[in-house]
Every structure is written in structure tokens, then in C-alpha cells.
């Protein structure tokens, strides 16, 4: 809706119509996400460590999809709020409906020291074209009082901008690719 909407002559024939499809729904936040959110409010990033294979899931899912076993609060670990960028995407905004961003920005996956990963994170104070794999970062927590987890839903996939504003370079040397952990995406 934009390019096609020219200055309209009120008497010209009607040739098009805006068709606005909208789906609106409400859902209960699942207990595992509730717990993760509550811990974020306390400044802790939590995950579940699979009791069978030992993989760490941040945010916790309540199950290990590889072993197909349930994970519970008994499997909860507190993850580090420092880590290394393992992957990133630079998004070049196109001015389509609803897009608010105008400049390229990066979303990164971060492997946390000791285990666990968060994806869709923002790196602060680094231009999008300087974001790179191996960059050492630490969480910048929103100040208590301003911190909120209201934006975390069941499918937030670890984005938690109301609690963690982003990640700041630690200044440490980059991690060499061969030294990166072999647990990229999750």
C-alpha cells in the first residue's frame, strides 16, 4: 500500500481496492516461558540442560527435541551473560507496510560461555557492517525499574529486548573460528 496509492482523482473510475487481511488472537504464556521471564526480571538468563544428552536450551523449552524427553525446573541452569557471536544476519529494511527501521541492522546469535545460545539479539555500538562471527560480547541489562518482559511471548525465540537491551563488545580478542563451540543455532 504505497506506491500504488497515487494522488486520487475523486471522479476517476475505481480500479483497485485495499484488502486488509488481519488475524488477531490471544494465547496463554506457557509456564516455562513465564519462569524464564521471571528470571530475566532478576537479571538471570536461564536454560534447561537435557538430563540425557547434556545440551543446554536457552530459553528453556521444557523438552529436549533431540532426545524427546521432558525437561523441568530440576534441569534449570543459570547461563552466563557473556558469550561470543556465532552467526548474524544484516537486515536491509525495505519500506514495506509496517517496517519502522530505515537503516541496515544486524541480528546475531550468541553462544553463552558455559553453554546455551540466544538468537535474534542486537549488538550495541557496532555498525552493522562490522558485526562478525567471533566477536566477544556481554549483555547490557535494562535498568531495574525499566526492565520488562512484556514483549516475550511463546514464540519470541529468545529475543528479550525489554530485559536485555543488547550486547556490548567486551573488548577481548575475537574467538577464532576453529575455537567456536559446535552448538551454533540453539
Amino acid at each position, binding site marked *: 500500500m504505497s506506491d500504488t496509492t497515487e494522488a486520487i482523482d475523486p471522479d476517476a473510475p475505481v480500479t483497485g*481496492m485495499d484488502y486488509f487481511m488481519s*488475524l488477531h488472537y490471544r494465547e496463554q504464556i506457557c509456564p516455562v516461558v513465564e519462569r524464564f521471564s521471571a528470571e530475566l526480571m532478576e537479571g538471570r538468563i536461564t536454560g534447561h540442560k537435557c538430563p540425557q544428552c547434556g545440551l543446554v536450551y536457552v530459553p528453556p523449552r521444557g523438552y529436549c527435541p533431540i532426545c524427546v524427553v521432558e525437561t523441568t525446573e530440576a534441569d534449570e541452569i543459570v547461563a552466563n551473560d557473556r558469550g561470543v557471536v556465532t552467526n548474524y544476519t544484516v537486515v536491509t529494511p525495505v519500506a514495506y507496510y*509496517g517496517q519502522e527501521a530505515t537503516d541496515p541492522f544486524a541480528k546475531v546469535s550468541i553462544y553463552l560461555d558455559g553453554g546455551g545460545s540466544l538468537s535474534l539479539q542486537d549488538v550495541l555500538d557496532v555498525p552493522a557492517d562490522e558485526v562478525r562471527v567471533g566477536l566477544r560480547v556481554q549483555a547490557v541489562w535494562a535498568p531495574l525499574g525499566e526492565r520488562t518482559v512484556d514483549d516475550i511471548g511463546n514464540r519470541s525465540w529468545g529475543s528479550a529486548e525489554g530485559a536485555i537491551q543488547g550486547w556490548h563488545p567486551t573488548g577481548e580478542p575475537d574467538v577464532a573460528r576453529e575455537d567456536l563451540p559446535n552448538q551454533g543455532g540453539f
Partner: protein
Amino acid sequence: MCSTSAVSSQVPSSKSDAPGRTSTSTIEFPYTRTLGPVYGAFLTGMRDGRILGMPKADGSVLCPPTEWDPDTGAALTDDLVEVGPGGEVTTWAWVTEPTRKHPLDHPFAFALIRLDGASTGLLHAVDAGAIDAMHTGMRVVPRWKDERIGLITDLEAFVPAADGGGGDA
């Protein structure tokens, strides 16, 4: 779609004393649809406060108009003709609890309306006030919006004609 998508927004509501948080999501897809010669002309009529139908060779008139004869599949290319503005309710269903997507925010009827001069029924809302005011065969007239842009909703609703009308209850 995830919450980073520009056409999706997630607006969770939170109450600390509630047993569980809920999140409310809205996914939206905006399109602009090209109307073609017949729907375009029909909606141009809507904008101008006129209801148009497609005449067929046998003398019948389709309203809403179509580009094709539903009986034979033959192309219909004649100029549209004006029908109505009044018409007759041929069947209807009362909507007790309108949703936010419905054309009116209070109880109303969806009805098929055979406009004067037309041979088929146009689906639209009848703002009759109460279900007791509805009956098959009743006469209705359009209530137009003041600001019309070329949509079927430019015709806000049909209302019972002042002269009443016959028909079975």
C-alpha cells in the same frame, strides 16, 4: 510469523497478580487488489451512490455483477445498468452478537436483497433494529455513507423502507 516481522506485532498484556500472562498477537497482510472492468465499475457506482448490475441477453440482470455468465460461462461485456435503490429481502440471518469485523456494531441481519430491476440477490447488512422487524419479502432501501471511496461498505446498510412492504413473515 515472528515478532520481528514488520507485518506482525505481538502486544502481550501483563498483570502481575494474574495466574498467567497472555499475549495478544495481530498478523496483518495488506493487499491492493486490481478490480477489473466489472467490479471496478460496480465499486465506482458504490462511490457515486449508485447500485449497478450486469444485464444478460435474456433480459435478466445480475447484481452483484460478474464478468461471466454463471449459467453458461460466456463473457458478459455489456455496460452495467443501474438497479434499485430499493429491493426485497429474499432470505436473511440475524446476527445477535456482531464481531469487530462485521459491518455494524449492533445486532443486524445479513440478507440477500433482490434489488428492483435485478434478478439475483446482493448479500448485504440490514439494519432493522430488532429481529422482529425482519421478514422475508420486506422492502429495504440503502443507507449510504457520506464519505464514499469505492467499497461495498460505502453502502453502510440497507434499512426497512418507510412504506413497509408485503411478504410472508
